[in-house]
């Protein structure tokens, strides 16, 4: 056996280090055809199967490799925050747009993907294209930073059997916002004659995020004429009397419904999944919640699936049609990504209308396409009563992109749960809605001041 000397060890170590350095270009070249992708895990197994098939099809067609991880929604958010902070990023992220995109684009941490989006620009719903335009504080202008491939709005979900058990008919529901919500209130007393602990409304007046409580409040705000609170130019109009009045009316209605006992008391701390679970356990008659995940989760239980009625938005309180808040699901390429070309190529493939259509259909149609022509040409989207209502609200009616698109400060307003906190203040501390609204406006003003947008 040869005697190992210190010099021999040092020589060997140097040789290994040198070999490692020289081998790196080959490793890098090999990676050039592989993109690392973080994708949101589906709500139902069919969504994940649809994504795996999409990846298989793309890999066969392109010869590239998609090294993907399917990660549940909340942990993915945490993973993305960590990655963007440390700089150790994947090549493509299916991202929680409203929470994570505005700030990162503001900080110039995202790659411009206009060349990808332009390939289908003519096909996209106008609101969808608007929703791709975020403000970059380094370049001082808006640019295209997300690749949209699916959309979502908030429809109403109602247990038809509970409505009928209470002696009502859903077809009698009023056509304006407040009256529509009020329609469900008397059902509670009727249902409690036979069932303890049942409520009329799954109203999410919550301070726990990320999305539902904010979406519910904004639904009320729009219905009360406060849609102008943030405009496309990024300006926030807190001094507008109409906006102020709408905010106060919204806070008043939501908190009164809670205090009157029409909402389960735990709603104050519900997260995005809690209302779905409570609805499934028939704790309340109706819910106002994004996507038709509530229905799709019961897809294989036909009786339950068919018992739910999905309803599009009623008219605003002034009797005019109200726009739905449009959430766009999209992928982004963070700066620091190593395989930008492959990531872009994959997204160009995905946003082709027919590819997206198949992908979303195989995922049981929980999300809508971003392309209206698809729902007009493919009977699948109108064949199911849940999807039909959802499509009508999302792609065939007026929509407005979520406010963080217009001003990145609104993402922080949402994250801080400013409106949920105002509601909690009224409910827990008895604060007057007007005073709570003023406090909320002050908080918003302070947050928005951190994001000056050059027109």
């Amino acid at each position, binding site marked *: 056996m040869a005697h190992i000397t210190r010099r021999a060890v040092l020589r060997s170590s140097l040789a290994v280090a040198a070999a490692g350095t020289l081998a790196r270009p080959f490793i890098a070249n090999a990676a050039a055809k592989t993109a690392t992708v973080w994708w949101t895990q589906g709500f139902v197994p069919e969504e994940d199967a649809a994504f795996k098939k999409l990846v298989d099809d793309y890999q066969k067609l392109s010869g590239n490799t998609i090294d993907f991880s399917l990660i549940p929604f909340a942990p993915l*958010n945490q993973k993305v*925050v960590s990655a963007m902070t440390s700089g150790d990023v994947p090549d493509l992220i299916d991202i929680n747009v409203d929470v994570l995109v505005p700030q990162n684009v503001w900080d110039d941490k995202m790659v411009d993907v206009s060349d990808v989006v332009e390939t289908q620009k003519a096909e996209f719903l106008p609101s969808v294209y608007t929703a791709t335009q975020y403000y970059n504080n380094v370049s001082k202008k808006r640019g295209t930073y997300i690749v949209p491939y699916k959309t979502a709005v908030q429809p109403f979900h109602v247990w038809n059997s509970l409505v009928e058990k209470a002696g009502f008919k859903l077809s009698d529901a009023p056509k304006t916002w407040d009256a529509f919500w009020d329609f469900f209130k008397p059902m509670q007393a009727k249902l409690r004659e036979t069932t303890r602990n049942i409520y009329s409304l799954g109203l999410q007046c919550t301070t726990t995020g990320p999305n539902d409580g904010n979406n519910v409040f904004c639904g009320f705000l729009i219905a009360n004429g406060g849609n102008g609170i943030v405009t496309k130019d990024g300006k926030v109009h807190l001094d507008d009397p109409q906006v102020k009045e709408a905010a106060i009316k919204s806070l008043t209605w939501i908190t009164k419904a809670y205090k009157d006992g029409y909402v389960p008391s735990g709603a104050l701390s519900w997260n995005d999944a809690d209302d779905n679970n409570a609805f499934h356990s028939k704790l309340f008659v109706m819910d106002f919640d994004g996507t038709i995940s509530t229905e799709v989760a019961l897809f294989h239980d036909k009786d339950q699936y068919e018992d739910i009625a999905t309803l599009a938005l009623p008219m605003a309180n002034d009797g005019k049609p109200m726009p739905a808040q449009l959430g766009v699901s999209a992928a982004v390429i963070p700066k620091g990504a190593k395989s930008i070309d492959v990531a872009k190529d994959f997204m160009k493939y995905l946003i082709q209308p027919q590819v997206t259509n198949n992908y979303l259909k195989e995922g049981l149609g929980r999300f809508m396409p971003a392309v209206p022509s698809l729902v007009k040409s493919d009977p699948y989207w109108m064949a199911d009563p849940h999807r039909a209502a959802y499509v009508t609200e999302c792609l065939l009616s007026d929509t407005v992109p979520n406010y963080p698109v217009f001003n990145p400060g609104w993402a922080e307003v949402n994250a801080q749960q400013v409106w949920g906190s105002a509601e909690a203040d009224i409910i827990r501390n008895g604060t007057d809605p007007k005073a709570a609204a003023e406090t909320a406006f002050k908080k918003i003003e302070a947050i928005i001041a951190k994001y000056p947008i050059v027109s």
Partner: protein
Amino acid sequence: MASATVIDVGRPVARRRSLFSSLRGSLQGSEYAWAIAFCIPYVGVFIAFVIFPVFYGLWLGHSPSLYVELMHDPIYQDTIVNTLLYLAIGVNVKMFFALLLSGFFMRKGWWVKGLLMIYVLPWAVPALPTFISIHWMLNTQWGLINNTLWDVFHVDGPGWLDTSRWMALGSVITTYIWKNMPFWTVILLAGRMAIPQELYEAAEVDGATGIRRFIHVSFPLLANLYLVCTLLSTIFTLGDFNTAYFISGGGPALSTHVLATLGIRDAFEIARPQLGVAAVLSSLPLMIPLVVILMHKLRTSDVQL
């Protein structure tokens, strides 16, 4: 002057030689290089997984503006109060009852041993399923507790976690005590078992029985162990995330966060990791003195048990 110069220059050289010699020990020739080679992986792992994360965290939370922002945040102010209450009530009630129960479990009899086995179950079973179970038990509408109240007394139970900050925080603290008390009971039980029986016999001769035996024999001998355990428990509890997160989730209306859960909220829900790290680092003014006192107590030569 000349001699003074020689002394000034000479001292550090002598120290260096001494340090070098002590590091080298009795190793000869290439043995020393081998020793270093074998140490390098451990040093590397230590730097990568201890030094780097600590300094990266300090770097993330270094800006004074983060602390100014926290101080002006009413949620953070509530969080500080919650954390102090959590520590003061949770740790002390837990340790006090653990001390008392450790005396009970000193009793002889097979049933006491059997009871001890059942008693340590909350600590032995995994934390998350038990916390989630308790969270569900506390549900106002369909939780076990309120349903039982309804079935037995026909009354609606309170909204344990729904609207009242103090009821939710009380639920968090109670769960924390239930979960952790068995562990510290066993530690104090081991301490009691180490007290020589002869001391009790001598005390008995002097007339110290019952509570007087506890006051004059057991407690003085356990006092140092009790203090060290309390300090350790306080340090652990300061970083406890699971109890508050899974019992109240920081609710209702963000009113029951502790520093560990607020840090996660700020870092990931608000997507501001620097602010989250600053929230956690703000516990250092309490944490560092605790660690210093603990080290001092562990170093003391006047060890009782």
